[in-house]
């Protein structure tokens, strides 16, 4: 089998029958599984065994799925390559020697390598769509509130959603059917406005006749030439099937990366304060008082990228800087939402390359954090706007997979699934 796709390989059998009977699922290792360790790719949780299941895991079991393992990820979801995992990096089955993307790299790689039929990941700023694009599979980031986050170890709660991977759009949509829906244990969930009795899987008809596609020019600027070429080929394919496209402008997205990182880091600094080695997780058992012991536990337990984000988030929220960073980032977030609302009033869906670049080589990109953050330019605006998006394989450049991202209005998943299935 491919290297390091799973952090823990263990089979969890679901119910005897159900819509996912006979289907194998890889589950990202930040989604709680009762009795099976859940590490978040961190030394901090190397031995943590959750006493309860995440709501999505309960739903998988009830649907008859077989969970085959907990997949590798960037530590606490913080990364674009799966290389920040304490448990080592994962090779890209679709492009050996390259990263699988991140942070849900193990989940995408599991599907690409045939180690699982489908997989669950989580997407805070692109962590489902990036690895889907890099591994040549399908990934869906649902509308904020469509899928319960109960049992997902929190990183940036206002941004993240659990979502599915599949080899085909229909496979991913079928998994979305199982995990979607409100949950009294996550007060941010909502029941999607229903479209009759039809399922998400039913929407994978490939019918794009009459579909209007807006292409945000800002999301093509600075992208790799081969990626852009592959993107336009896919748009031409959709046109040939009856869709039309027009350019749109989203001036706010020029500030999306910095707004995203300020908000995500601020939320991370608060969320990860819980890891003190007392109730669960690594305990350095250090001498000294409460503060000294916590600082030692967290020095040992967290890797560089996690420390970086906790410290920058603490800085951005500290007295004197809050208005300068956090408040401005919230303004930018509201602006991004307005821009998307306006663009989606004139188009059924928006389309862009999922990632502006093809997969990095393993080890290529760890030293410069800012360069890595900039690679998220096309995915983070969607999380800031709470919208759904899908990444589907669009072709290759120099033998490396390229993904195309469709973005839709809130709870417009069916429309994205229909558009995505036209590229298969």
């Amino acid at each position, binding site marked *: 089998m491919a290297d390091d796709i799973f952090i823990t390989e263990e089979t969890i059998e679901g119910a005897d029958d159900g819509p996912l009977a006979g289907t194998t699922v890889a589950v990202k290792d930040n989604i709680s599984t009762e009795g099976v360790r859940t590490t978040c790719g961190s030394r901090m949780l190397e031995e943590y065994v959750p006493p309860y299941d995440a709501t999505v895991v309960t739903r998988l079991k009830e649907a008859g799925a077989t969970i085959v393992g907990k997949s590798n990820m960037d530590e606490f979801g913080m990364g674009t390559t799966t290389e920040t995992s304490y448990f080592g990096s994962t090779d890209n089955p679709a492009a050996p020697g390259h990263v699988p993307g991140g942070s849900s790299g193990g989940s995408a790689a599991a599907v690409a390598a045939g180690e699982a039929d489908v997989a669950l990941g989580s997407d805070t700023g692109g962590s489902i769509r990036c690895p889907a694009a890099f591994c040549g599979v399908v990934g869906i980031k649902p509308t904020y509130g469509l899928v319960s986050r109960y049992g997902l170890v929190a990183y940036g709660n206002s941004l993240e959603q659990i979502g599915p991977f599949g080899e085909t759009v229909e496979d991913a949509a079928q998994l979305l059917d199982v995990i979607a829906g409100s949950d009294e244990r996550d007060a941010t969930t909502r029941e999607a406005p229903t479209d009759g009795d039809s399922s998400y899987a039913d929407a994978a008809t490939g019918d794009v006749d009459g579909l209007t596609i807006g292409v945000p020019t800002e999301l093509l600027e600075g992208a790799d030439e081969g990626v852009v070429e592959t993107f336009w080929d896919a748009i031409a394919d959709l046109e040939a099937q009856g869709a039309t496209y027009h350019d749109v402008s989203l001036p706010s997205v020029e500030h999306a990366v910095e707004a995203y990182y300020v908000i995500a880091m601020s939320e991370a600094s608060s969320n990860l304060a819980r890891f*003190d080695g007392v109730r669960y997780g690594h*305990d350095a058992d250090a001498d000294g*008082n*409460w503060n000294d012991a916590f*600082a030692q536990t967290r020095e040992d337990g967290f890797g560089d990228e996690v420390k970086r984000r906790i410290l920058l988030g603490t800085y951005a929220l500290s007295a004197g800087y809050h208005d*300068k960073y956090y408040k*401005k980032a919230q303004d930018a977030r*509201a602006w991004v939402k307005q821009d998307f609302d306006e663009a989606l009033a004139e188009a059924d869906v928006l389309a862009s390359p999922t990632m502006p670049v093809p997969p990095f080589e393993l080890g290529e990109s760890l030293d410069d954090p800012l360069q890595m953050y900039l690679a998220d330019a096309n995915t983070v605006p969607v999380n800031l706007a709470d919208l759904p998006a899908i990444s589907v394989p669009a072709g290759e450049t120099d033998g490396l997979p390229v993904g195309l991202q469709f973005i839709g209005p809130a709870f417009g998943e069916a429309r994205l699934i229909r558009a995505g299935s036209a590229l298969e």
Partner: protein
Amino acid sequence: MSDDAVSPEEVRHVAELARVGLADDEVDQFTRQFADILEYFETLDEVPEVDREADLTNVMRPDEVRDSLERETALENASETEDGYFKGPNVS
């Protein structure tokens, strides 16, 4: 680099606030990286003030007693316990 670039003392101070111990070489590395990253964040200054129309409703449930984890289960992942409680380091 802007005048606001962060100093090693500030990195140590923030690390102390966040209860994250740092080795000396980490302080140097983070000081350099934070200068770049914070300089990039400065571009948020160009963002106009935006009316935020939050369309949010509170979600409440009745305050009723419900089942929760058994005490023993809740303590299973703790490194140290005593008489059914978590045991932490000395406060001072």
